[in-house]
């Protein structure tokens, strides 16, 4: 299955970036999931395509966009996104993509490394990210992954799928 076209994905990512600070100010905004991570997980299919070029480009782009509106370093975003894709890929190869509960577990697990790195980066800056908020962010990511079902890549149906 092919991922969304870049000409749609990039404007959406930029729009999400511009709105992210406003969303964070809303009541309960601290518990909202990381929008770039959600977008990344939704735009890259599982199992991973043969070519990882698109995934790498999206990780770099989303990391740059994310660090434009936060004090946290882009390295945290890049490392967190990379780990999230690794975790999801590892779990998705073992767990069914057709079970919402398992998709929730996969999404939740994929969000954990980024949440941990964010917390560490915040501590280094002298700020404190609430642990409960971090867990709720991971849970929300998992819920979104469970809700937005992306079927496994039917590579036998399309040539060069996922590019």
């Amino acid at each position, binding site marked *: 299955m092919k991922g969304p076209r870049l000409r749609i994905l990039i404007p959406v990512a930029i729009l999400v970036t511009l709105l992210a*600070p*406003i969303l*964070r*100010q809303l009541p309960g905004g601290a518990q909202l999931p990381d929008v770039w991570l959600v977008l990344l997980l939704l735009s890259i299919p599982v199992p991973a395509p043969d070519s*990882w070029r698109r995934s790498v480009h999206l990780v770099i782009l989303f990391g740059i966009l994310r660090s434009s509106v936060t*004090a946290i370093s*882009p390295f945290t975003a890049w490392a967190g996104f990379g*780990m999230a894709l690794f975790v999801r890929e590892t779990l998705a190869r073992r767990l069914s993509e057709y079970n919402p509960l398992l998709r929730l577990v996969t999404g939740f697990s994929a969000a954990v490394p980024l949440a941990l790195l964010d917390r560490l980066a915040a501590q280094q800056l002298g*700020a404190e990210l609430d642990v409960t908020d971090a867990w709720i962010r991971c849970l929300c990511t998992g819920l979104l992954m469970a809700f937005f079902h992306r079927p496994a890549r039917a590579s*036998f149906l399309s040539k060069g799928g996922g590019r």
Partner: protein
Amino acid sequence: MFLLPGAERYRRVLLTGAAVGLLAVQAMFPLPQIEHVVSVVLAPVQKPIAALAGELDDLLTGTSVDSTGVALAPTRSALVAMERRLGLPAAIPGMAWLEVPVWSLDLERGRLVIAAGTDFHLAKGQVVAFGESFLGRLGEVREHAADVELWSAAGLRTGLAVLSETGLPIRAVCFGRGGGGAAVVEWSEDETDYQDGQALMWRPRPLDPPNLEQAGLHLGALSLEGDPNRGEALWVVDHAIPAGAQGRVFIAAGAVGSELIADPAERRHGASRLLRTDALLGSGWYALSSSADFTPTVVTDQAKVSGELRVWRSGWGWARRLAPAAWDEGAVALNPDAGELLGAKAWEESANPLPLFTRGGAHIPRGLWLGYQDEAAMYPATSLEVLRLDAQAEDSR
């Protein structure tokens, strides 16, 4: 369709895993040089995005900036004036007191770094004081900075005189234990007259200018440490560094240049707010941009500190909004009624909210107006100013 052989896939997984691992290491243990290079490369993209997000935020939320109370703020010179009033020791015939701001304080090593050196004609061994308190002597003197070796530093011996009931001074020597702790009275002419709380006067060395004794400098008060019944008791010198001495000290000099006051270089530049909220850390952080050719450390809004700059990315950065009381050890309070300066521990216990100023150090100027103790963190206006207390690189050890 081309399927990767297992070996090729494993190679790719390994390489990508290593790359992600390296990124994670950089994220956990950031190397400033790498961060700087990346921030320079990304600044042309990130700065406009942050500015656009800020404009959208202002447009949709339309929050106005409250700047009330700024006009009534005590000026920075109020703190300086108080420090001068409290810190200038008694006049000594034939000598002058040079006023030098303090760059940093390292209590663990028993050292103050002051913002003047050979450029201000300072020399090793000169006596340093604040008010009636003897602080120590100048150690290493560099071009634009000098070290003050506090008399309580580990291993330093200082002569003192205990005022006995008969009025005759008892000569003694104390031995510093460092770490800001009490020095031990190591040798004494006579310990029989010692009492808890007795005042201890500083005693000059034989080769010091004789007039220095007239300054009447104190070391602290005598105190008994340990249990005398078990033979473990020690007479120690109970003391504390005055809060004002963390801002400026006075150095005795027999010969002076044209200036009696040394002023550290302070750099300022205009700045503008980009974004009021951090998308991950929340509203306690804000982004700002400035074309300053230095890395700022603090942001002010109409002469009042608006935030501490924690991240600087080549022309723009992120500052943290802090309530005045949240500066904690980084703030000193001015008590105008009692005419005293208070350190963090003292002002935290105060019943009435006191005006707070920056304590200074770590490239943050001293005496910037923070606000009253009970005030909340202020929202930054659109026009700001960034500052940095400058120093020669070789001096900021």
